[in-house]
């Protein structure tokens, strides 16, 4: 047993988090910033933060993740990091020549009270920012929220670039949330099929699922361009996918630029995708194209074909709020039973939403927003499940409890392919169903007696 010290009996903890289901804000800000074209993320703090975030993102995406750091020393930590950041800005623009530097803070720089706008001003005054180049800054203290919050804060910083009173673009802004590069691509494909011209930001497709060609480009020809982000203030409206990751940015666009917004769930699963597509077609004033209708029909078809294997099977879930909400709804849709749901990102709204989603079934759900995977494991010990869905850390629980695991979410450190195939949209739904079914049937095959081993399932 690899987690042999985890007792079945649950004791409430007031101070100790064990096996977190979240990490800190800056990594989210770094991921978001990678979705801006020509952007180098910059971590304003000790160099260890940047190293850790780069390592984790790299292990998940299996792609180079360039990011710089202010490399605080003890001195900077005491006297402030302004000098380090200005020097960094100078070095970065000189050596790497990005179009944008997206700076996020850390617990260190937040604790000492570094003021990014003020430092940016000084850098500009000192001519460290070449013409046409952009600095973005997001306050992402590690001691509040989670990596999800950090992502949202950096996206909000992008939205803050939007210019009020600019030209009407006739486009719709879509803020996709923290999803895989392939998911961003799929959101663009769906919008394009429905006929809605969009600005997607951030957009990591092509950045974190890039080709191998013998050329390394720190800034691939991909990502949301600064011009488009600036022009997003002239959009028809903004669709924020996911309350936790995207809503704040959309609301900022509304308040700053009078661009109205709607917050939708991540389009994961049948019904959330239905709502997304329905919204798009109403905005576009268009019929939903046959291709999408067919994709939907294929998803419904596969749900019906697989239903017997899903029905009533219990699932433990861990991940990020927007993902979990959509996944919980999808599981209910296919008559599976979400039994335990844990996210690390705090928020009572999350618990209510999950509870509401499961309310229509005959089951109740254990849900914890500021939970951890230690608790999840204990819940599983107390009420066993048929399947775990979550990130790679779940493999320890899965092994100890001898449960099948579908890897989904962040980070996935021990499998590859997730970057390349969407789980959003109807096509993404097909993939999720395939993954869940494979996990369940692999287990069924493994556990079958010789007499009940089946050729046809």
């Amino acid at each position, binding site marked *: 047993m690899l987690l042999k*010290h985890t007792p079945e009996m649950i004791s409430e903890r*007031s*101070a100790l988090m064990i096996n*977190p289901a*979240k990490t800190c804000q800056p990594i989210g800000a770094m991921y978001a910033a990678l979705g801006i074209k020509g952007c180098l993320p910059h971590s304003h703090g000790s160099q260890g933060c940047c190293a*850790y975030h780069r390592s984790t993102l790299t292990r998940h995406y299996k792609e180079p993740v360039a990011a710089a750091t202010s490399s605080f020393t003890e001195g900077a930590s005491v006297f402030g990091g302004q000098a380090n950041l200005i020097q960094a800005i100078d*070095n970065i623009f000189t050596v790497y020549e990005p179009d944008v530097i997206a700076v996020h803070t850390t*617990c260190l720089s937040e604790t000492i009270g570094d003021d990014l706008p003020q430092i940016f001003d000084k850098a500009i005054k000192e001519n460290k920012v070449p013409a046409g180049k952009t600095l973005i800054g997001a306050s992402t*203290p590690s*001691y509040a929220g989670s990596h999800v919050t950090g992502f949202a804060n950096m996206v909000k910083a992008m939205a803050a670039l939007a210019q009020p009173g600019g030209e009407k673009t006739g486009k719709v802004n879509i803020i996709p949330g923290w999803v895989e590069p392939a998911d961003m691509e799929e959101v663009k494909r769906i919008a394009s099929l429905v006929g809605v011209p969009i600005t997607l930001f951030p957009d990591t497709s092509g950045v974190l699922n890039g080709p191998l060609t013998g050329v390394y480009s720190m800034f691939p020809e991909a990502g949301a361009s600064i011009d488009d982000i600036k022009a997003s203030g002239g959009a028809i409206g903004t669709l924020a996918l996911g309350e936790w990751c995207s809503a704040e940015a959309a609301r900022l666009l509304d308040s700053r630029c009078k661009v109205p917004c709607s917050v939708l769930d991540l389009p994961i699963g049948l019904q959330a995708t239905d709502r997304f597509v329905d919204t798009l077609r109403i905005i576009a004033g268009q019929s939903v194209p046959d291709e999408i209708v067919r994709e939907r029909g294929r998803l419904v078809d596969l749900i019906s074909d697989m239903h017997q294997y899903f029905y009533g099977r219990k699932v433990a879930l861990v991940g990020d709020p927007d993902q979990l909400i959509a996944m919980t709804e999808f599981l209910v849709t296919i008559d599976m039973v979400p039994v335990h749901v844990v996210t690390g990102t705090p928020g009572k709204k999350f618990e209510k939403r999950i509870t509401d989603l499961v309310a229509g079934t005959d089951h109740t759900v254990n849900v914890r927003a500021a939970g951890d995977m230690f608790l999840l494991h204990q819940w599983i010990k107390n009420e066993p499940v048929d399947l775990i869905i979550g990130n790679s850390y779940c493999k320890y629980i899965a092994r100890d409890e001898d449960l099948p695991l579908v890897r989904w979410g962040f980070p996935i450190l021990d499998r590859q392919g997730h970057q390349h195939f969407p789980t959003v949209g109807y096509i993404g739904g097909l993939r999720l169903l395939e993954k869940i079914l494979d996990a369940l049937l692999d287990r069924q095959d493994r556990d079958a007696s010789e007499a009940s081993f089946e050729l046809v399932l």
Partner: protein
Amino acid sequence: MGKAQRTKQWDPVQVKEQLLAKYPAKVARKRAKQILINEARENTTPEITANVRTIPGIITMRGCTYAGCKGVILGPTSDIVNLVHGPIGCSFYAWLTRRNQTSASGEHGENFMTYALSTDMQESDIIFGGEKKLAAAIQEAYDLFHPKSIAVFATCPVGLIGDDIHAVARTMKEKFGDCNVFAFSCEGYKGVSQSAGHHIANNQIFRHVVGTGKKQRSEQFRINLLGEYNIGGDGFEIDRILTKCGITNIATFSGNSTYDQFATANQADLSCVMCHRSINYVADMLETKYGIPWIKVNFIGAAATAKSLRKIGDYFQDAELSARIESVVAEELPSVEVQRQQVLPRTTGKTAMLFVGGSRAHHYQELFKELGMKTISAGYEFAHRDDYEGRHVIPGLKVDADSRNIEEIEVQPDPHLYHPRKSPEQLAQLQQDGMAFKEYDGLIADMDERTLVIDDLNQYEAEKLVELLKPDLFCAGIKEKYSIQKLGVPMKQLHSYDSGGPYAGFHGAVNFYREIDRLVNSRVWGYLKAPWQEHPELSATYVWE
């Protein structure tokens, strides 16, 4: 990237110039001192600047002090509960990401390495202080796990807000009575790299644990192995060989280690240092306080392994031990050699670059030599000058502002536990017979002339180096892996071994031969161009069958 280009002569001076060309002047000046062209000099090693600040904005390979302390040194110990005091991230990132394996050989089979514990500091803790929360967290950890020891790690804000983690640890230790609670002020901003974290970690282990063990060790030929972290099972392989030779490894610092091993490390007869950088000062302290001499060893490479075993044998001056070592070498080496010969024709003449943390950038050159490969550039991520130039430079090292705050422990011979393992005469005789105590000549001495030794190599220089010198293999860490590979050059992680290993010892050498064969002979790098890129011309009409 044709063969022709690869083998053509290159001028290290020109390469260095090109590495520096784009930098702002101040950066270029600094980096110039950290990029060294290895030259033949009489009895002197060229001087390199090392262990200096990372340049803000220049994308570094380095991590922080916390990473060196919690991640590297304390991570591999199975039965100490590690509790990180700070916001959640630092605990999360150091959770199971280092590949230090464990056999969970503590008294009750404890294994806390799969647990990440944190106080998950919130804004209110930052404002009002986190000591109470820390105390509560220690209590909860104790109540859940009842470990023999709890280690507390400070992350960046802790030092700034003034939480006295050592006081909290002391209080809780006293309260529990049966659990050694101690703390590390390893805030990430301290020092200039992980190295400071190693130091902080090792100091506290030395102070709070070593020498406290009740158990009397009575095995023959007792050593400590310092600076071996059991990445990918390296330590398992070394222990296998040591055991076979009849040598008892009292404590590894800190691969696959247990609390009790540290506690009884003072009972060893010899300290063997693998990673000089991360732990040489502990070897010194063990000698001063307990009377244990130390030698440098290296179990990376089959020949190096044999050599290190013999060195240990020579130290103990026991004929039976030496015979046993010879028989182990005679048993193991030939099959390693068979494997080597199989791979050799496929690897000979290939070139490698090595940029990794501590001693690996040096040690692994042994393995590449065994493969007939040439290391054309190498350097450390967080070394000091002595790791490059040899220990003779230590007395002259300047202590700068960043190093000053990293504690140096002053130790004295322990009134009860100190006893010299050898008489001065014996030591003198051994030295006369060639046994080098407390000696390490560093990386530069082992590298060819006109190779490039580069300290704290960064992303920009790495890319340039690869473009200019087109090595057959580049070795560094996960952050570097994919940008190098995008250039069409295979990249081997020498921190985590890319999930491979062990690479130490005899079995490890064979693993490494095979892995390098795979890397430098993979078909993959031939697919970078599509046929239409190789032959872009469009015929007027397609030629049907």
